[in-house]
């Protein structure tokens, strides 16, 4: 049965799916500080998410989830290891990419616990901002933004300011923003935390649909017991190490 919250991909004008390799992480380590006071936040992380796949990342507080997310998001520099994005090595014991800002802008989508929309931009411009930052013309950027809003079934709220949107609508706009530059990977940090069960599942469903539609690898950090069963694969992180588990992959009803 078609998901009422997700528009037909053909109607969005999304570009044809192309082969993508997703993200691969091997032996990633992150150490804070030096000497006796050094703390190993990540000891050995192996993780692989294929294009179009959504995986869960779970673990207790202090286990290193946020550190891993920051390393994946090119916000902090790992101490060692290797990261590959769409078969492009971006980190191999050192950054292989000179412009991390452009990497974040073009290749990584972020969805946060709170939507963190820019409060002084309407829904369309919140989404269009990313292509504009990438140097695309305003008109084209807004067209892409509207396309994403249509895909996420919030096109009717295109002119609304964030303060006029419900929590669920804001989160969809945030997902649209994360997707608008067609990044190969999306990092979602507790995206369902502030939402009730129905809306939480709707957001996860959208992420699954968008991952399939745009061949995007999606990593969802979550504590939410309601959404964990929806993942086919789950990475549990304990003491800075990842342990892969097979999830239920429960279908949406």
């Amino acid at each position, binding site marked *: 049965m078609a998901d009422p919250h997700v528009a037909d991909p053909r109607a969005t004008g999304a570009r044809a799916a192309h082969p993508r390799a997703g993200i691969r992480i091997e032996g990633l380590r992150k150490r804070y500080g030096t000497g006796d006071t050094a703390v190993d936040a990540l000891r050995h992380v192996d993780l692989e998410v294929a294009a179009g796949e959504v995986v869960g990342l779970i673990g207790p507080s202090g286990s290193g989830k*946020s550190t891993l997310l*920051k390393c994946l998001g090119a916000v902090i520099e790992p101490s060692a290891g290797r990261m590959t994005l769409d078969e492009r090595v971006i980190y191999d014991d050192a950054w292989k990419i000179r412009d991390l800002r452009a990497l974040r802008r073009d290749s990584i989508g*972020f969805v*946060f616990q709170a939507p963190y929309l820019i409060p002084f*931009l309407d829904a369309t411009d919140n989404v269009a*901002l990313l292509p*504009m930052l990438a140097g695309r013309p*305003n008109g084209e950027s807004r067209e892409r933004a509207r396309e994403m809003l249509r895909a996420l079934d919030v096109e009717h709220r295109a002119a609304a300011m964030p303060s006029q949107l419900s929590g669920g609508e804001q989160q969809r706009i945030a997902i649209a923003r994360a997707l608008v530059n067609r990044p190969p990977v999306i990092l979602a940090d507790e995206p369902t935390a502030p939402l009730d069960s129905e809306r939480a599942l709707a957001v996860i469903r959208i992420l699954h649909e968008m991952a399939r539609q745009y061949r995007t690898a999606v990593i969802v950090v979550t504590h939410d017991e309601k959404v964990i069963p929806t993942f086919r694969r789950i990475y549990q992180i304990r003491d800075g190490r990842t342990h892969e588990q097979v999830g239920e992959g429960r279908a949406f009803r």
Partner: protein
Amino acid sequence: MISLAGRDVLQSWGKFVFTGIGLGLLIGATLTMAGVYRGMVDDARVLLGSSGTDLWVVQLNTLGPYAEASSLYDDTWRGIASMPGVARAANVTYQTMQVRGGGRDVRSMVVGVVSGGPGEPGQPGHLVAGRHLTRGHYEAVADVATGFRLGDTIGIRRNDYTIVGLTRRMVSSSGDPMIFIPLKDAQQAQFLKDNDAIVRQRRRTAENPAFDLPGAPGVLDAVLASQSINPYVNAVLAQLAPGHAAEDVAAQIRRWKRLQVYTQSQMEEILIGKLIATSARQIGLFLVILAIVSAAIVAFIIYTLTVAKIREIAVLKLIGTKNGTISSMILQQALGLGVIGILVGKIAATLWAPVFPRNVVLDTGDAARALVAVLVLCVLASAVAIRAALRIDPAEAVGG
């Protein structure tokens, strides 16, 4: 690219505009202070220009008559008038006092001039109503700033005067409006004591054995008579004959009359460079303080607006916004505040300047300089906020 600064301002325009208005009122006060100084300079120039005078002859080694007390015998003008190059010369007195009229006191500078028509040295150049002084006693020409009207009766010391003419922009360096009265009346007003004092002075003189000589009975009467008149004036104003240079004629008077002589440019230097120099320094200090306060306000407001957007800025940085774009957003807002401030300040100063008791001259050049200064201050003030914004770690947008 979207104007992030513009959108942010539109979103919270109330806060922005009211801050701009507050800043504008401060800038308005700054422009007004500058206008007060300009007004003082302007008044000084008008005072010199409208007196119809080329040379001010005053007591030797004084800066009189405006900056220092000066005293000359009232027949000095005859010798000066006969000097080569002098077309006309006339006595003048100046005294600041309270002038009664219409049931109130008006602080005024009373100027004693020789009665005559326009063009006489010391006479006000232009009248806005009535006529010049033509009689020798008991009539006056007042500046409109005194509030007196034609036909009003005013009291100066023990005599009453009728206002026969009104002039405009004739004020002293202190900003007191001028009242012109006949010279003899002005000399008397400077000198005249009350009756009791006159009686006591006569008695004291009569008791003096040096004046009560048996062989010379007229000495005491002569001395008493000399004490009853005031043969002094404060300055002699002279007009040059065509073809004569002011400095040449002044040099001749200095040499032969042994008096101090100032040309128009020298008197202007005394009025502006010396007499209002302290006021100018005070105003300058106020301008510096107001500039610092304005900069502090802009810095505080921009910093507050920026700090309130820490999370948004972190998100912007995380999604790839360049530091330059974020700095530009903050800078544009600071400059926007400055522009609003200047506009409001200029309008406010224009509206309230006429209410000031002193002449306030709002110079367009001052407004342009203020605009540049405010924009520079805004740039400097935004530096703190920009620094804070650039120090925001994009990792703050990511949980944990």
